[in-house]
């Protein structure tokens, strides 16, 4: 009897885990969508807040990290932008769009560093 209960509990947990993960992704996605809308209107602070919320809710959401990196970049927060891009690439290393964003960011960031080093 005890074994049956344990098996049932394990089954419920196994089924509930992906459902919870899907819920988190869905919630994070709605934050990402809202962030995109406000960023398109130039409200980058609000967009940054939304994407920060998204990565808090679902830290494995590469698109949210990518968007957050762009928001940081737009506001001149280069260290934070680099960390966010690297996180996005860590999660989704084959995503060419994230890679392209990161390459463009690095080009500007390297230029800034060269100037500082003069």
């Amino acid at each position, binding site marked *: 009897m005890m074994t049956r209960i344990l098996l049932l509990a394990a089954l419920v947990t196994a089924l509930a885990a992906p459902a919870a993960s899907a819920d988190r992704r869905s919630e994070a996605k709605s934050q990402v969508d809202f962030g*995109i809308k406000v960023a398109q209107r130039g409200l980058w602070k609000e967009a940054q807040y939304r994407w920060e919320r998204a990565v808090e809710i679902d830290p494995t959401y590469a698109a949210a990290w990518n968007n957050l990196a*762009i928001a940081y970049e737009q506001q001149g927060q280069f260290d934070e932008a680099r960390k966010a891009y690297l996180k996005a690439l860590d999660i989704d290393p084959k995503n060419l769009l994230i890679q392209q964003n990161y390459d463009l960011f690095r080009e*500007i960031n390297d230029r800034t560093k060269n100037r500082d080093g003069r």
Partner: protein
Amino acid sequence: MTAPRTATAVSLGLALVVGACTSFYEIPIETPIQPKLDVSPFRRVLIAGFISGGSDDVDANLETVRLLRSQLRSKSELAVIEADVIPLAAMATDQRPLADPVTDPMAEPRAEAQIRSQKDLEAYEHIFADVAFWKKLGEEYQQPLIVTGTILFTPHQRSGMVQRTQTVQDAFGRQRTVPVRTYMERKGFILNPKFIFIDGRTGTTLHSETFREEILYNAQQNTPALSSYFELMDRLIPSFLSTLSMQKIRGTRVLLK
């Protein structure tokens, strides 16, 4: 269909499916770049003058002062001081020690020589290290940020192989552009400015930077020296401005869903 071809087709198809499923939005961004120099202690800027040389066709001292003042008036928050352009070369000549007639009987006393090369300029550069001179000038203008330096604008000639595009017609009458290499005589100018930023409160140098820009035209083309000067200055004005004020670099990024 062979195995590698199948694999290529499958991966291409997958890439298209992934591309179609991923929602993305291209968005313009403006990345702020902080100025190289902290100009917060200053409210005013004095473009004092430059030691210039090279071509006789352009008064590089006067033109550079005018150009930088007009650029800073519209693109910097510092108030630009309107003052007479300082004849720095003459002042530097006056500051030079008199030639000793015993050791150098041929030396002409304190004559302002023609500046044709970087080497000629070196004889005048001591003035930028004259802290007392710049401090006094700073006091005169209520301790602004002082911009000075050297400008060498020299004619230049070069010949060699040049790649250019040529339009050709193929057998079917279609026009195509193809790269061709031809030997060309070219002439133009080299602009070598060194901008020096001096603290008007202390007379010390805060920052300096050197640029080099070159332009060459077909030898038959007759381009006025002043046009070439402005064309070359246009290229380095953004770098000059970025020393004093925040610049924004425009670009695009891709937002993902």
